[in-house]
């Protein structure tokens, strides 16, 4: 009975109810969209960084991550490869050689981290090929090809097939140099990466620096949730000369950024929910105020206190439920649509490593959490006006 009455009551003042429902509808649609857009940004940054830079996991010489010396390479990469061979979660492995280098042209000089890659493997592993804006990925007939970013190319006034002198410290301790030709120019959404990196063939860097072994073995897995399991395996089985690092250790800023985006989107959602909560409190207080006489009458003719209480709680619940449920559904629909078409953000966020077009990701646990928060909030908020109604004395209400 109270349910039916509560349902009818919310439509007594259609304008007021629709204003609140509309606020909940748009507020929660926006919250769901924002949460999933932020998640999409975080996922895109992570995917790019993991694919182009670190992989989900890396195995290195135990000292390399600290000192980054050219002679701190993996002494027996075959042993590591054999160890990883039977891990089903691993989808791709690549070996890279890394050295600090100076790139010089007649016009300018630039410092970069030079990464030596095996093109036929790297092209499967890394998304860098997707960001080529000219030339090829270390392929073709050029001797000693090099990939440079658009920013580096501009600074050094390089174009495809241009010559650039690469100078670095060889394993012998000598400063060595070699002439490379630009085979491709890339532009990733990650500006800091672009400003500091150049790519050459593994064999060419090895020849120049005098080493044959990789500094890092990067690993991609099919599910990030499986990282802990693989790390557990490596803790037990990796020889003590090597260390493994997850992307969280290698990219602490990205990890912090992802945590920050999640916190911000959650905070944004909580602010929206609090706004709705105060709106609901105000609406329900007005309802109790306006219906004091009616509530007094209901109590007089025999409706129990708690029946009145739950009738008002249900009214709050209906208002919030209609608005939030439809809003959340709209949010999910928008996220689903934009996860196909993308959301154009423009290139203004490239400094943060954010692409011009972001594809939101549907994050069900967050959506469920929003639903749970909305329900808890409604339950808490609805109690106050309902308690106020409990204090209405029938004879006083009817007299007024």
């Amino acid at each position, binding site marked *: *009975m109270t349910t039916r*009455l509560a349902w*009818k*009551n919310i*439509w*007594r003042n259609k304008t007021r109810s629709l204003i609140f429902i509309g606020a909940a509808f748009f507020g929660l649609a926006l919250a769901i969209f924002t949460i999933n857009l932020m998640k999409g940004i975080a996922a895109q940054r992570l995917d790019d960084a993991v694919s182009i830079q670190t992989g989900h996991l890396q195995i290195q010489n135990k000292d390399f991550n600290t000192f980054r010396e050219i002679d701190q390479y993996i002494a027996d990469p075959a042993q590591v490869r054999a160890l990883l061979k039977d891990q089903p979660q691993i989808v791709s492995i690549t070996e890279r050689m890394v050295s600090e280098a100076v790139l010089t042209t007649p016009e300018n000089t630039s410092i970069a981290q030079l990464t030596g890659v095996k093109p036929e493997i790297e092209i499967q592993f890394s998304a860098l090929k997707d960001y080529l804006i000219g030339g090829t990925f270390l392929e073709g007939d050029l001797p000693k090809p090099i990939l440079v970013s658009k920013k580096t190319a501009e600074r050094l006034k390089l174009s495809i097939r241009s010559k650039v002198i690469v100078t670095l410290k060889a394993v012998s301790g000598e400063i060595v140099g070699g002439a490379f030709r630009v085979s491709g120019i890339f532009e990733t959404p990650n500006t800091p990466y672009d400003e500091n990196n150049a790519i050459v063939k593994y064999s060419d860097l090895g020849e120049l620096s005098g080493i044959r072994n990789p500094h890092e073995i990067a690993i991609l897995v099919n599910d990030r949730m499986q990282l802990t399991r693989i790390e557990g395996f490596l803790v037990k089985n990796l020889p003590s000369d090597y260390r493994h690092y997850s992307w969280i250790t290698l990219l602490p800023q990205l990890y912090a950024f992802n945590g920050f985006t999640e916190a911000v989107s959650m905070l944004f959602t909580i602010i929206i929910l609090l706004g709705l909560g105060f709106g609901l409190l105000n609406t329900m207080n007005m309802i109790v105020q306006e219906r004091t*006489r*009616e509530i007094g*009458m209901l*109590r*007089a*003719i*025999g*409706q*129990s*206190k708690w*029946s009145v209480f739950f009738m008002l709680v249900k009214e709050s619940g209906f208002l919030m439920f209609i608005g939030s449920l439809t809003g959340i559904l709209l949010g999910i629909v928008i996220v689903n649509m934009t996860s196909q078409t993308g959301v154009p953000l423009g290139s203004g966020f490239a400094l943060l490593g954010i692409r011009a077009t972001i594809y939101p990701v549907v994050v069900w646990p967050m959506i469920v959490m929003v639903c749970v928060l909305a329900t808890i909030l409604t339950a808490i908020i609805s109690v106050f006006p309902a308690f106020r109604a409990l204090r209405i*004395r*029938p*004879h006083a209400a*009817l*007299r007024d």
Partner: protein
Amino acid sequence: MEIIEIRNLSKTYNPKTIPVHAVNQVNLTFKEGEFTAIVGASGSGKTTLLNMIGGIDNPSEGEVCIASNNLTNMSETQKTKFRRDHIGFVFQSYNLLPVLTAIENVEFIMEMQGRPVKERHSRSKELLSAICLSNRLHSRPGKLSGGQQQRVAVARALAHKPKFVIADEPTANLDSRSTADLLDIMVKLNEQEGITFIFSTHDQRVVDRARRVIVFEDGSVKEDYNK
């Protein structure tokens, strides 16, 4: 047979500051089937007395017994249930639920009691037919005239077959024609169903139709006579 017994009933507002004795040492009894009008000027204490008889206000002193149940000793919850099951209320400003239709308003108390739908429906139809509103079963109060709304309120008060009906100035907002119609209906229902009616009023037309008149002045019974 006596259905209501009021002993030494008093109600004092602001007892600690400036005491106002709204009802002062009232002793009364009401018999089953009576049709009583309590008359008096505004502020004489009629409504306070009715509220205490109906258990929606607590006396400062004295007691109200209804069919051997001492209302004064009951908890709020017991009183609420007692009101729901044994008392009918008619208010000056009708106080129908605007979101329910006429028949739903009449059914409301029976629904609270948990009576079966079929019983509720047939009783409500019967009552609405008795008050000549069988053609307005599904009209909401906003679509009914004041007189029609008050008739629906009477039907609601009678629907659960209470021991008695308390009506506080039921005709105060009605025109002559509606007042006459409402009184006809209440007299008819009083006679047909044997339900006790107690009114507060200062409407002479109601007093004329009452069989017992209690004149109230300054919170006390000044006159009490049968016609």
